């Protein structure tokens, strides 16, 4: 029999198996869907939490106030030089005029405060954002040391305590996420593999009979493997649909509240890659669980 004929036989046999035991298949698919719904929802929460952390991370920045004697061209050149320093993600040059406009536009800026002054008292500055992995007190100190040696910088402004707090919060959130994620992944793996195993065990007679008429291990196992893959993929799709419904319901109902919590960051849904990943995870779990169960029956 050609490889193509083998594949066609395995697919048709798998589909026949699904049709022949709709309740068992539905239970397996439903279990996978529920497990992935939980795991996927947690994953989506993590994705959004990462975004919030990244957003707050943007606040880990250094303001380098420049000397009024420094011509604008030199200030811009200095900005380019700082941009090339290790650990720097971005540099924004804020001219004296821009600083003044920003002050006036800010909630604390009162035009009357500056009315009596002949000239703009605010200095030009460089607003330096660190790369994510340097957003900690160590990375900040290293950058501040380097900036201190550069000419034209009169003063440096940065919140050291805030940075330490941020770094601790990130470590805590990621640690808790990792622990919950590991428990959830293990539970998903156990529940899915046991459900699939039960559905295979319910058909162990079929496996035994096929072996008795001379079917090889692959001949018997491949359709079961495919059934597991299909059940898993269907479970993944159902879970994805459930998460999408939940996401839209939550963002629709609590949109304003979420904005308050997340600040300017809008909650996002999975991208195409992540959605595909969830379905593939379901298929993989189903296929692996099924394959392992058939092998176990064959060995017994």
């Amino acid at each position, binding site marked *: 029999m050609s490889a193509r004929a083998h594949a066609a036989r395995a697919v048709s046999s798998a589909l026949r198996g699904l049709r022949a035991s709709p309740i068992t298949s539905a239970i397996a698919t439903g279990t996978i869907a529920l497990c992935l719904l939980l795991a996927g929802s947690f994953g989506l929460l993590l994705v959004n939490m990462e975004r919030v952390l990244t957003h707050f991370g943007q606040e880990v920045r250094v303001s380098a106030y420049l000397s009024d004697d420094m011509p604008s061209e030199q200030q811009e050149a200095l900005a380019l030089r700082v941009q090339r320093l290790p650990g720097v993600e971005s540099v924004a040059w804020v001219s004296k005029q821009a600083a003044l406009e920003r002050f006036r536009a800010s909630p604390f800026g009162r035009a009357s405060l500056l009315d009596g002054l002949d000239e703009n008292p605010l200095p030009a500055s460089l607003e330096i954002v660190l790369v994510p992995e340097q957003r900690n007190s160590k990375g900040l100190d290293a950058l501040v040391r380097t900036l201190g040696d550069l000419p034209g910088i009169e003063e440096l402004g940065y919140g050291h305590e805030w940075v330490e707090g941020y770094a601790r919060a990130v470590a805590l959130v990621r640690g808790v996420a990792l622990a919950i994620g590991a428990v959830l992944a293990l539970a998903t793996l156990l529940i899915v593999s046991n459900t699939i195993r039960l559905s295979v065990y319910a058909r162990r007679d079929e496996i035994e009979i096929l072996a008795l008429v*001379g079917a090889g291990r692959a*001949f018997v196992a491949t359709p079961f493997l495919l059934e597991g893959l299909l059940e898993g993929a269907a479970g993944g799709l159902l879970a994805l649909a459930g998460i999408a419904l939940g996401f839209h319901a939550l963002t629709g109902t609590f949109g304003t509240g979420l904005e308050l919590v997340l600040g300017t960051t809008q909650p996002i849904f999975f991208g195409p890659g992540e959605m595909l990943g969830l379905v593939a995870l379901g298929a993989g779990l189903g296929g692996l669980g099924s394959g392992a169960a058939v092998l176990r029956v064959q060995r017994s």
Partner: protein
Amino acid sequence: MRGFGAEPAPPGAGGLVRLYHVSKAYQAGSWALRDVSLELEKGDLAFVTGPSGAGKSTLMRLVFAAERPSEGQILVLGRNVGRLGTAGISRLRRRIGVVFQDFKLLHRRTVEDNVGVALEVMGVPARERKARVFAMLKRVGLHHRRQHHPLSLSGGEQQRLALARALVNDPEVLLADEPTGNLDPDLTLEIMDLIASAAARGTAVFVATHDHALVERYGRRRLRLEGGRLIEDLRVGSR
């Protein structure tokens, strides 16, 4: 010795099934089969009789490699069963037809699929498979029920279905454990005629049975087991 004109079976050189001093114990000291030696040649139609627990089913299971002997050697179609790996056992079974006492039918599949699976595992193309399955079902009188499922068949029909699956690939060895146990006298003769015709085409056949009338009518070779020992091995008349 039983039966008129019986004579001891002579040792042959071209046996399809050969057992040399085979013993099988499922528990230490409790022998299901003890020191059995025999040879089955092409076209042999051998009836294995004996009381329940005599070792008839164990003998069959050893021949189709569902069990390995505790002692001795078994050669089936030139293969040493005790030394075969998983793939080797599968290949061997494709050349052996087995009718199980409990039929071992695939209840989720149709009658047609149940017979076709024996050809499917051999890689027979679908079109040829369909034709051969239809012809086989016609021989056992089940062609009109080919789209039914086994559980909707009577006991006798299930038995014929099991025989159809065992014969459809023209096996070199056929093992039948009580193949007529659920059949009425007319069907019994029909089924036995099918088995006898397989033997006439060269298949070496083992039939385990309690039905002495069948043995008297068809039994050219008669084996009797008691307490796991082969106490009788006779050839009756000419083959």
